[in-house]
């Protein structure tokens, strides 16, 4: 088997805050293969965005990537690169698409200029050929009348158009990997599907791998071949998308799936997960999901669960893997019982 395009090993990224050290990403490992679209899901504060920023080494003080972490990309440990070499990776081999197309573009330059800029830094393109490249990229992302649009400012474009521009900027150098951090969250629902389809279509054609960060399992189902579920700074479940939807193992993943609206399930209330993510400055001992879990028992309070292998490519960080019988006896989660949050 060919080595993975991206291999993250025990990534620890922490932030010094007044409340103590927040371990936002706490020992995350995963692999991403060439041409693959890997989904990363989890609720706000689970560490998925920090993981993305860590890959590009864009975490700013007071945040830092701890020693012992490794991020191997195309065979190189990015964490060992000099800043100058890292700049060569950013935008060139790995590009990022941000959540907010309103603010990800500089208001004082035309969109054509901003796309051309990428070609100018990385390919040393002349002003003219860079400008031509910009128009070509705008056409590629399906913007009508690209030559005209290239001369317009971000505020003259709609949200969907702007996100297309952001995608165009990411694709200029034909990177091996695109990290898309909630690329459609800020857009209208009707536009969301278009943008995702565009991203999927282009990356398939160009053979680009995608790390798709989202809190929307529906987006994962449609776009990703594999999924990583993150919770409280850790990977809690990893599997193929098909397997995850058919046989989710971790109670947190089950909770996420239960919170999804589905066709044919009638007008019942959507399930919610009681409680909230614990504070990253003080992850609880044992299982971090324990207080919100309907199956937790005394072992969960003591032993921090490892990632159990469930089958080929399916892993789950839950003791139920060893004691599956306990699934038969759900109880009220601690968080719900103590009234921490109402369902």
């Amino acid at each position, binding site marked *: 088997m060919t080595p993975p395009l991206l291999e993250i090993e025990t990534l620890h990224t922490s932030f010094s805050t007044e409340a103590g050290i927040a371990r936002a990403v706490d020992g995350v490992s995963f692999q991403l293969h060439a041409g693959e679209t890997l989904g990363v899901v989890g609720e706000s504060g689970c560490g998925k965005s920090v993981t993305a920023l860590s890959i590009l080494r864009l975490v700013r003080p007071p945040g830092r990537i701890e020693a012992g972490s490794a991020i191997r990309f195309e065979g190189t440990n990015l964490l060992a690169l000099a800043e100058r070499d890292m700049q060569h990776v950013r935008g060139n081999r790995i590009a990022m698409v941000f959540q907010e197309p309103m*603010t990800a573009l500089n*208001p004082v330059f035309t969109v054509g200029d901003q796309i051309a800029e990428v070609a100018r*830094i990385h390919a040393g393109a002349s002003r003219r050929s860079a400008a031509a490249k910009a128009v070509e990229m705008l056409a590629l992302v399906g913007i009508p009348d690209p030559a005209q649009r290239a001369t317009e400012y971000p505020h003259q474009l709609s949200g969907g158009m702007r996100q297309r521009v952001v995608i165009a*900027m990411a694709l200029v150098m034909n990177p091996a990997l695109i990290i898309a951090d909630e690329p459609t969250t800020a857009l209208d629902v009707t536009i969301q599907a278009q943008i995702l389809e565009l991203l999927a279509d282009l990356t398939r054609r160009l053979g680009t791998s995608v790390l798709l960060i989202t809190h929307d399992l529906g987006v994962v189902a449609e776009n990703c071949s594999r999924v990583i579920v993150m919770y409280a700074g850790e990977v809690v479940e990893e599997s193929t998308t098909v397997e995850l939807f058919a046989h989710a193992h971790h109670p947190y993943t089950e909770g996420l799936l239960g919170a999804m609206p589905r066709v044919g399930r009638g007008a019942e209330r959507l399930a919610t997960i009681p409680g909230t993510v614990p504070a990253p400055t003080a992850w609880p001992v044992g299982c971090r999901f324990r207080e919100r879990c309907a199956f937790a028992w005394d072992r969960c309070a003591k032993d921090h669960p490892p990632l159990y292998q469930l089958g080929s490519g399916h892993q789950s960080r839950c003791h139920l893997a060893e004691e599956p019988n306990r699934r038969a006896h759900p109880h009220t989660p601690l968080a719900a019982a103590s009234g921490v949050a109402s369902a």
Partner: protein
Amino acid sequence: MPAIGVRHRLLRDRRVWIGLGVLAFMAVAALTAPLIAPYKPDAQLDIVQLAGQAPSSAHWLGTDPFGRDVLSRMLFGSRVSLTIALAAVAMAMTFGTLVGVIAGYFGGPVDSVLMRLVDAAFSIPPLLYIIVVAALWGDVGIVALTLLIASVAWFGVSRLVRAKALTVRDADFVMAARALGMSSWRIVTRHVLPNVVGPAIVTSTLAIGNVILLEAGLSYLGIGVRPPQASWGSIIQDGAERMSDQWWLTLFPGLAILVTAFACNALGDALRDALDPRQLQPLRDDDTPLITA
């Protein structure tokens, strides 16, 4: 630089035309002073007959106690006053922007040190500081005066630019630029500077008025421009003792200062409004641009 909306809005703003008109008038008068001045600025025409004459058809703005034509002195004085003001403000703007961008973009200890220096500088009254330095320096010419004025005018610019640079630094598009592989230097020149020049130009324009007043105050106190050379401030100084009976000695240069400061402020206000990014709205169909970008 923002072009479309900004230029369009500037051209439609009456304050721009008034400000530019007044300043252009002043500039032309200053440049052509030797041609249009009716008399030599320091010629004592007739100390007996013509000392302290009220405005008349021969001396539109009267004469001073030494028998010199006030209009001619003001025309030549505008060269000194405007040059000092523009040069000092240009220096202050450049230096203030530099310090502000460095402090704001790099932040941390660099920012703390620079801003505490600015705080300290702010706590010293500028007039007092210049008087002390001038006294220690001895002979303060026009160049030294300009430098002194610039040295007290940049704090305001640096404060404002820093605040703006701080917000730009944390803007998503700067993060996006870093994610696209831009170096810090390039981010500063491509993203931070273009976003802070607007506010820097605006505060500087507003500072021109203050600087003219400061120079006038200093000349009034006898620092800088020396007799018989004229500046607006020194003309006022010459006339200060006779304000009750020879009002024209102080009124006309005072008006000149007032009008110039007013024009600069009008221009600065208009620039500030036009450069406000919140006003960068798409042009509506009924807004026909006067000049296309």
